[in-house]
């Protein structure tokens, strides 16, 4: 689509500058998009493997917990784990990946893991909790990576929109307008020339 401008030489020069700028911006954004894509793909495969591993590990841990529950009795086991002295939190650190702020989580634990009477609870509960804690560490790792993937994915989408807007809208319309102005200018030039020739003929006829 042609822009709405006056076909003057000034305008032509201005548009040429804008076109050069748009092309440079397009190239930069395209490079950014390619690099984001590279990071994204690397993350995707990491996450896929990690997630499958975590799911397997967690399922094993659940099974152990269910065994513990049926051996020791649901009430006893649930009461045992409902008053933990263990406090689990994550350290959240901000990291920049290609100017995208991404949180990074690291598991931090304090307190004793088994804070219940050992006499009344089944031994299976201890192994179940140890297995679950191991799974939890990997789950937190998965959480960081999945969040990074989501945020980078969002950035890729935004960058792609901008690349496309430049490539398919702004740059073509600038090019078309530049072509229009230069045609118009040379048309005016030719008009001027014929008028001059005609005037000269009239002047020559009179003398």
């Amino acid at each position, binding site marked *: 689509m042609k822009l709405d401008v006056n076909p003057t030489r000034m305008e032509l020069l201005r548009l040429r500058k804008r076109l050069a700028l748009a092309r440079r911006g397009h190239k930069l954004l395209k490079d950014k998009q390619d690099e984001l894509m590279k990071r994204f793909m690397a993350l995707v495969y990491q996450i896929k493997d990690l997630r499958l591993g975590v799911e397997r590990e967690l399922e094993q841990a659940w099974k152990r917990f269910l065994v513990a529950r049926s051996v020791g009795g649901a009430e006893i086991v649930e009461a045992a784990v409902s008053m933990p002295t263990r406090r689990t939190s994550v350290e959240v650190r901000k990291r920049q990946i290609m100017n995208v702020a991404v949180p990074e989580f690291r598991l931090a634990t304090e307190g004793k893991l088994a804070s219940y009477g050992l006499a009344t609870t089944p031994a299976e509960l201890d192994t179940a909790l140890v297995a679950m804690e191991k799974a939890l560490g990997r789950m937190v790792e*998965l959480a960081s990576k999945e969040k990074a993937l989501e945020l980078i994915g969002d950035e890729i989408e935004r960058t792609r929109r901008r690349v496309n807007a430049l490539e398919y809208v702004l740059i073509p319309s600038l090019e078309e307008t530049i072509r229009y102005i230069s045609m118009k200018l040379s048309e005016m030039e030719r008009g001027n020339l014929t008028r001059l020739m005609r005037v000269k003929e009239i002047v020559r006829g009179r003398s």
Partner: protein
Amino acid sequence: MLNKRLAVVGEKATVVAFEGLGVAAFPVESAEEARKIVSRLIRRKEHAVIFVTEDIGKAVEDIIAESTKEYEPSVVLVPSSSGSQKIGLRKLSQVLKRALGTDILKVE
């Protein structure tokens, strides 16, 4: 550096196990309750990571999808004690589809 807590949302028999690890557990019994709790947890941002078990994951899929653009919290679907239903992987392929336009993992 900031220390934030973790949360687990799911069916009671499943999440109590995590309570023993010092993770904040939110047992839910119905789909509405799950929606209410998950959206509140996401809005309050007190927990950096929210694990949602897959058996209630279906009920809150749209709420989780909205949270993906936020910096925090990270919502992760994990299998419940009855085994993986691949909802977590499906969420991953949705992210892919939005970013790339196609799904390259092909989770059935």
